[in-house]
C-alpha cells in the first residue's frame, strides 16, 4: 500500500471508530436509563410499602415486567461493550495507518492530532482491558462520551496532514518517553473519571441518575488502583526516559522548560494524591479532589502549554528559528 492509501485508511478508520463509539454510547445510555427507572421504581415501591423497608430490596426485581427490563438492560450493556471493542480495533487501525503513512514509517505521535488520538485510544482500550477486572461497566457512558468528544475535537480542530518527524524527535528514547506519557495520560484520565463519579455520588447519594454507579468505597478503590498504576508509568516517562532523551537531544537532562515544569507539577500533585489517601483524614472526597487537580494540570500541560507558551522547546514542530531579525523594507529586491 502506498503512503497515501495508508493516510486515507487512517482517516476513514478514525471516522468509523468515532461512529461506532457513538453507537456504543447510545447502548450504554439505554442501559444506564434502565437502571435509572429501576431505581425510581424501587423508590416508589418503598413508598408504597412504607418507610423502614430496607433499600436493598431494589436489588431483587419482584415483578415480571421488571425482570424483562433487567434483561434488556444487561443486553444493551453487553452490546455496548462489544461495540466499544470494535471501535477500539478501528481506532488502532487508524493509529497504525498514521504511522505507516509517513515516510519513513514512524510512531503515530508527531503532533497534537496524533497525540490526541493516541491518548484517547489508551483511555478506551484500558477501559475494555480492565472492564472485567475492575468491574467497570458502569463507566461506559463516561468513557465513551469522553472518547467521542475528544475524537471529534481532534478531527475538527487539530487535524494535520502526515509529515515526517523532525530530527530531534527521531529517537527511540522519545518513543519510550511518549508511550509512557500516553499510557499514563490515558490511565490518569480513566482514574479521574472514577474520581469525578466519586464526588458526584458523594454529593448526590440517592440520585436515580447515578444508580448504575457502584458504592463509594468501591469507587474510591477503583480510582486508587488506576492511579496507582498510572503514577509509576508517569514517573518513568517524565522523570527517567524524558530526561534521558532531553540529555541526548538538548544537552541537559532537565531544563525547567514549561512542559517539564508542568509534568513535574502533575507528578507532585499525584504524589500528593497517594499521600492524601494514605492519611486517614484525607481519604475519599479530599483525595478525589487532589486527583482531579492532578488531572487538570496534566491536561493543561498538554493543551495549555502548547498554545500559550512559546518558550517551550516541546513545540511539536521544528525548533524555533534563532533570533528573528527585522528587515528594512526592500531588503530582498
Amino acid at each position, binding site marked *: 500500500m502506498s503512503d497515501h492509501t495508508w493516510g486515507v485508511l487512517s482517516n476513514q478508520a478514525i471516522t468509523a471508530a468515532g461512529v461506532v463509539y457513538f453507537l456504543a454510547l447510545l447502548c450504554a445510555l439505554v442501559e444506564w436509563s434502565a437502571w435509572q427507572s429501576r431505581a425510581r421504581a424501587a423508590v416508589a415501591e418503598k413508598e408504597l410499602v412504607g418507610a423502614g423497608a430496607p433499600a436493598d430490596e431494589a436489588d431483587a426485581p419482584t415483578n415480571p415486567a421488571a425482570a424483562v427490563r433487567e434483561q434488556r438492560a444487561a443486553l444493551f450493556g453487553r452490546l455496548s461493550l462489544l461495540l466499544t471493542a470494535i471501535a477500539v480495533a478501528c481506532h488502532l487501525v487508524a493509529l497504525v495507518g498514521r504511522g505507516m503513512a509517513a515516510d519513513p514509517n514512524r510512531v503515530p505521535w508527531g503532533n497534537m492530532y496524533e497525540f490526541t488520538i493516541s491518548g484517547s485510544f489508551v483511555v478506551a482500550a484500558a477501559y475494555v482491558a480492565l472492564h472485567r477486572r475492575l468491574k467497570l461497566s458502569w463507566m461506559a457512558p463516561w468513557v465513551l462520551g469522553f472518547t467521542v468528544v475528544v475524537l471529534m475535537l481532534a478531527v475538527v480542530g487539530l487535524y494535520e496532514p502526515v509529515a515526517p518527524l523532525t530530527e530531534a524527535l527521531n529517537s527511540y528514547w522519545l518513543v519510550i518517553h511518549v508511550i509512557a506519557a500516553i499510557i499514563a495520560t490515558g490511565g490518569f484520565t480513566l482514574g479521574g473519571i472514577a474520581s469525578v463519579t466519586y464526588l458526584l455520588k458523594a454529593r448526590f447519594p440517592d440520585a436515580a441518575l447515578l444508580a448504575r454507579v457502584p458504592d463509594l468505597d468501591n469507587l474510591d478503590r477503583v480510582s486508587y488502583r488506576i492511579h496507582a498504576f498510572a503514577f509509576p508509568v508517569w514517573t518513568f516517562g517524565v522523570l527517567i526516559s524524558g530526561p534521558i532523551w532531553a540529555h541526548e537531544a538538548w544537552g541537559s537532562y532537565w531544563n525547567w522548560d514549561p512542559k517539564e515544569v508542568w509534568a513535574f507539577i502533575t507528578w507532585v500533585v499525584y504524589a500528593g494524591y497517594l499521600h492524601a489517601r494514605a492519611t486517614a483524614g484525607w481519604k475519599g472526597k479530599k483525595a478525589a479532589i487532589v486527583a482531579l487537580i492532578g488531572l487538570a494540570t496534566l491536561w493543561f500541560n498538554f493543551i495549555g502549554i502548547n498554545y500559550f507558551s512559546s518558550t517551550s522547546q516541546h513545540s511539536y514542530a521544528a525548533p524555533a528559528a*534563532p533570533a528573528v*531579525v527585522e*528587515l528594512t523594507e526592500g531588503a530582498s529586491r
Partner: protein
Amino acid sequence: MSTTSAPDQEKNEGVRRPGELNARELARWGWRQLTSMRTALILLLLLALAAVPGSLIPQDGVDSLKADQWREAHTTLTPIYEKLGLFNVYSTPWFAAIYLLLMVSLVGCIIPRCLVYARAMRAQPPATPAKLTRLPDSTTYVTDEEPAEVLAAARKQLRGYRIRKDDDGESVSAEKGYLREAGNLIFHMSLIIVLVAFATGSLFGYKGGVIVLVGEEYGFANELSQYDDFKSGSLFAPEDLDDFSFKIDDFKAEWLSTGAGAGTARGFNSKIRYTAGSSDEKTYDLRVNHPLTIGSTDVFLLAHGYAPVITVRDGEGNVAYSGPTIFLPQSQNLLSFGVVKAPYASPEEIGFQGLFYPFEGTVDGEPVNLMGDIGDGSHAMLSLQGFRGDLNLDAGPQSVYALDTSKANMMSPDETGKAFNLRLGETAELPDGLGSVSFDDVQQWNRVQISKSPGKEWALLGVSLALVGLLGSLFIRSRRVWVRARRVDGRTLVEIAALDRSGGGDTAAVVTGLAETLRGARTQEEKDV
C-alpha cells in the same frame, strides 16, 4: 537542617528547667508538625504551586532573550518581579525553602520509619486478636474436623506468609508483604539522592554554545573565551573546563525533495576530529541525539546553517572585508539573515545586511527560497542592502548579527532602491566608486552545545531506584491473616479474618477464598475416605 538536632539535644540533657521546657516542647511540637504526613502533603502541594510562575513568566535560565523582551514590555511589574525572583524562580530562596523543608520533613519521617521497620523485620506477626469476627472482613464456619488439622491445613495454605511461631495453639497468625514498607523507604530515600545529584549538577555544571565553521582551518578549543554564550552554576570554576579541541571536517544533511516534509532536512551528520588532553586525535560522527562524550563533557549538534564567503573592496581597491560570514536561519528552509561590517573601508565605512537564499526561484517577480539544499550552488543567491557612512561602532559593543543603520545612508546599485543581488561568483560595483562586493563561495557552520552536568548518573540511579521502590510500595500487598479453630459444642468452629494494611486491597475475597479452600480440601478428603 538545624532542626534535626532538636530532639537529640533533648535526650542528651538530663536536667530540665521550667523555662527551657517550654522552648523544648515547642521545638518538639514543631518537629512533630514538620514531620507529619499532613505537612508533607501540604509541602508537596505547595511545591507544585510554587513551580507554576516559572512556567508562565519567561525565565533567565531558560530563554534569556525572551525574559529581556518581557522586562522591556512590562516596566511597572518588572521591579516587583525582580524582587520576588520571578525571572529565576527555580533558584530563589523561597523555592529552595519549600523543597528543603520537604527534604527535612522527609528525613525526619523516614529515619524513624526505618528503625520501626528494622524492628518489624525481626518481629513475629502479632498474636491473634481475641474477637476475630469483629474485624471488617471475617467469616466463620463449623466443621467436624479436628482443630489441629484445620490449623495445619491453613498453615499450608498460607504459603509466602510469615507465620507466628509461639501462637496459642488454637490459632494461626500470618503476615506478608514486608517488602512493601521497604519499597516505600527506598522510594523516599532515593528522592534525597536525586535532589543532591540535581543540586550538584546545577551548582557545578555549565552549558555553552558556539558556532563553528566547517573546515580544516576552523575549529574550537574548550576555553571560556571561545564560547558565544555560556551559563554556569554558582560553584563552577573555569578550571573545571575539560581540556579538548575539535575541528569539523565535513557536514552533511539529507534533504527531502518529495512528500509532506519536502524542503526540510534530516540525517544531519558532522564528521569531527577531536583531541582530548594529550591523547591522540580521534574522529566521531556527531549527529542529533548522538552526542559526543569527552571526559565528563558532552558535545551536541544543535543546528546548522550557511556562511557565504563575501569580499568587500573599498574605493581604493583594498580588501576591507573578506571571509565566511555566518548567516542565521530564519526558517526551516534555511533562508538566512546576516550582516557584513567594513568599518575601515575608505573613503567611507561600508555595511551590508540581507538575506541568503540557498536555492532561489522567482515567483511572481519576487525571489523566493525554494529549499535549504544548496545543491551545486547554481541557485544560491545573496541579496544585500548596502549602507555607507557611520556604522555607529563607537557607541559601544554591537552584536555581529545586527547592523546599526541609524547614522548610515542606504546605497543602492541604481536609483530604484534595489538590493545588491549576487549569484555565486558574481561581483557588484558599489555606487560613486565606493568599491565592490563579491560573493565568492559558501561554507557551512554547525551550532554546537557543550555542557557538563556532574551528578547526572547519580540522578538517574536515584530516580531508577525510586521507581523500583515505588513499584514495591504500590503493588506489594501487606496483609495479615488469622485463622482460629476451636471446639464448640462438640464441633469445630473456624474463624477466619484478614486485615489489609495497604489500602485498596480486596480482603473480603482473601477471606472467602481461604475459607473455601479449607472447606474444599476437607470435602475432598471426606470423599477419599
